């Protein structure tokens, strides 16, 4: 029989105490790991989405609101920027690509985002090995609607003098690419048709654009970003369907510009170009440029205080639970004097007794910690569903190396907590106890 066998048998002898003390550790570790996992995974997910582009150009106002609305499809758009800015940026040296964005419609709560096909051709997302990869399609393909066709449509609308009641004239615009979550939640699939509604909540009864029934031509593979729960349509559709009254009546240079853009995704060449373009846009009176990665960092700095408080509380729960383990074992020391004396009579060294009791405490912490991580995985999977539902950011519930470190730390702390009762075992005077014939 080895020391581990003795420890396990002793834990088995006191099942209620073992289960209760392990559960208290599990609760603390579960809370601690959950708070940490959701925060870290959430931040990772937000940063992953932020990698879609270098800059998001939009109306003056809150840069965070602009990024959250344009990239994460949350909240309200801060307003529009002139269409002409898009054309300017396309022609600006140092701009690799620019994707115009229009928002405002939805289908059953899934926001409809007007973009050009460049989004699917040019955007790359980080992958596990540290490199990046283009967007992949689970089914179908992207709609064929490049920047040139959008520019051509805009010119046509300007020349034609109208701009919002022409849905039937451009049936090729009624195409859609849907995210993987959208497909799962709505049942839409390749070839499905749906009516966009002029309402972001997707409530039944919202005004639907019957003239712009869209056909699904592509379903994106999961990206782990808010793109998964969005619906992408050719941006031109936003300019030809009814109900989209002009919102930007102050075009630059006096040219008629019936409608602006909600935002522009921008990818610039590395180096000085980025700063120059960023400054140039922010010097304008009618637009701003926000850096998504910076906004996400600021956001998490903002909520970091709450996160720290939650982690401190859950760490306190772990400490109290480990103190409970120490007290529970210590309280058995009186009743176990004979057991330790027998060990000594059988040849156990004092140090061995110290090790056995310490190992008992560490084992309870280890068992509790392991169940805590299991509890955390369950809580994180629930939390992940909520996080994905509200932000579109996907979070993995699987334990990572950080969780294993936490488990090791809790086990070590459990061993430390066991030192107090272990010292009592160490001092066992076997000869006196055994000769008392109790």
């Amino acid at each position, binding site marked *: *029989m*080895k*020391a581990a*066998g*003795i420890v396990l*048998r002793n834990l*088995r*002898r006191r099942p209620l105490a073992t289960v209760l003390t392990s559960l208290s550790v599990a609760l603390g570790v579960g809370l601690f790991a959950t708070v940490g996992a959701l925060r870290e995974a959430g931040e990772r997910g937000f940063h992953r989405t932020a990698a879609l582009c270098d800059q998001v150009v939009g109306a003056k106002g809150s840069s965070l609101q602009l990024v959250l609305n344009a990239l994460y499809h949350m909240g309200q758009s801060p307003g529009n920027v002139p269409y002409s800015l898009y054309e300017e940026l396309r022609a600006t040296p140092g701009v690799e690509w620019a994707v115009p964005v229009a928002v405002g419609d939805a289908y059953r709560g899934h926001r409809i985002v007007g973009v050009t096909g460049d989004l699917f051709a040019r955007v790359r997302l980080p992958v596990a090995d540290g490199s990046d990869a283009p967007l992949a399609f689970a089914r179908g393909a992207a709609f064929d609607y490049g920047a040139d066709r959008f520019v051509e449509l805009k010119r046509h609308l300007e020349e034609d003098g109208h701009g919002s009641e022409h849905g039937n004239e451009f049936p090729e615009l009624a195409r859609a690419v849907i995210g993987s979550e959208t497909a799962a939640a709505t049942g839409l699939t390749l070839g499905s048709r749906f009516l966009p509604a002029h309402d972001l909540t997707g409530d039944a009864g919202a005004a639907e654009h019957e003239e712009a029934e869209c056909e699904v031509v592509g379903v994106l593979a999961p990206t782990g970003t808010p793109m998964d729960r969005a619906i992408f349509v050719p941006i031109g559709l936003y300019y030809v369907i009814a109900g989209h009254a002009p919102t930007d009546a102050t075009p630059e240079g006096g040219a008629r510009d019936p409608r602006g853009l909600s935002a522009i995704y921008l990818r610039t060449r590395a180096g000085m170009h980025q700063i120059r373009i960023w400054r140039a846009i922010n010097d304008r009176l009618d637009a701003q440029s926000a850096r998504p990665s910076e906004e996400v960092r600021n956001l998490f700095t903002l909520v970091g205080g709450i996160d720290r408080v939650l982690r401190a509380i859950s760490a306190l729960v772990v400490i109290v639970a480990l103190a409970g383990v120490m007290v529970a074992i210590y309280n058995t020391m009186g009743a176990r004097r*004979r*057991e330790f*004396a*027998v*060990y*000594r*009579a*059988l*040849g*156990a*060294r*004092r*140090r*061995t007794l110290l090790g056995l009791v310490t190992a008992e405490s560490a084992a309870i912490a280890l068992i509790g910690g392991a169940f805590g991580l299991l509890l955390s995985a369950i809580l994180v999977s629930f939390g992940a569903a909520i996080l994905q539902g509200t932000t579109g950011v996907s979070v993995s519930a699987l334990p990572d190396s950080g969780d294993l470190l936490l488990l090791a730390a809790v086990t070590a702390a459990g061993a430390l907590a066991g030192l107090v009762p272990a010292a009592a075992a160490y001092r066992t005077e*076997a*000869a006196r106890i*055994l*000769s008392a*014939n*109790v």
Partner: protein
Amino acid sequence: MTAPLIRVAGVEKRFGGGDGVAPVLSVRAFEVARGERVALMGASGSGKTTLLNLISGLLAADVGRIEVAGAELTGLGEAARDRFRARHVGFLFQTFHLLDGWTARENVELGAAFAGRRPPAGRAEELLRAVGLGERLDYWPSQLSVGQQARVSLARALINKPEVLLADEPTGALDVATGAAVLRLILDTARVEGTTVVCATHDPGVAADFDRTVRVEDLQ
């Protein structure tokens, strides 16, 4: 003549410390030959148990010299004496000291836990069968009679094939018939195992079954 397995010479043991404390035990000379079975008798408090604890290395002598199975215990530190005890000494107690929540087999296996070497496979079962408990390997101590508990305790003491079996009033808690049966078993099993036995007892009837009886008072 072969050297004795146990040799105690000029040993004194005091408890409580201080110069004014009288020795609990004082042994001028005490020797036991290999394979011998010796009964230790004496009045209560005469130091029988203390002498057993000194021979096992559980206690350290204040002065004098103790040699057991070729090891000079008085020259060893506590940890070394513990290692020696685990490998060379088996202990039998008056109240057996089996651990609750451990089966008979587990209690016997526990005897080998600290010896630093694994006993032959099936040794615990073999010993339990030898003491007549082959059908009760997985019984809890509370499911065994007092006599059966004594037998489990004997099996535990012998699992490491010790050279010395020290027994402290092993029949003190048993009725006459059970005590006699257990004593017979101890002596027979020890003979089969080739184990030297030193048994503290206050019962002349028990002592009569041993090769030799020594009164602790006569050792001073």
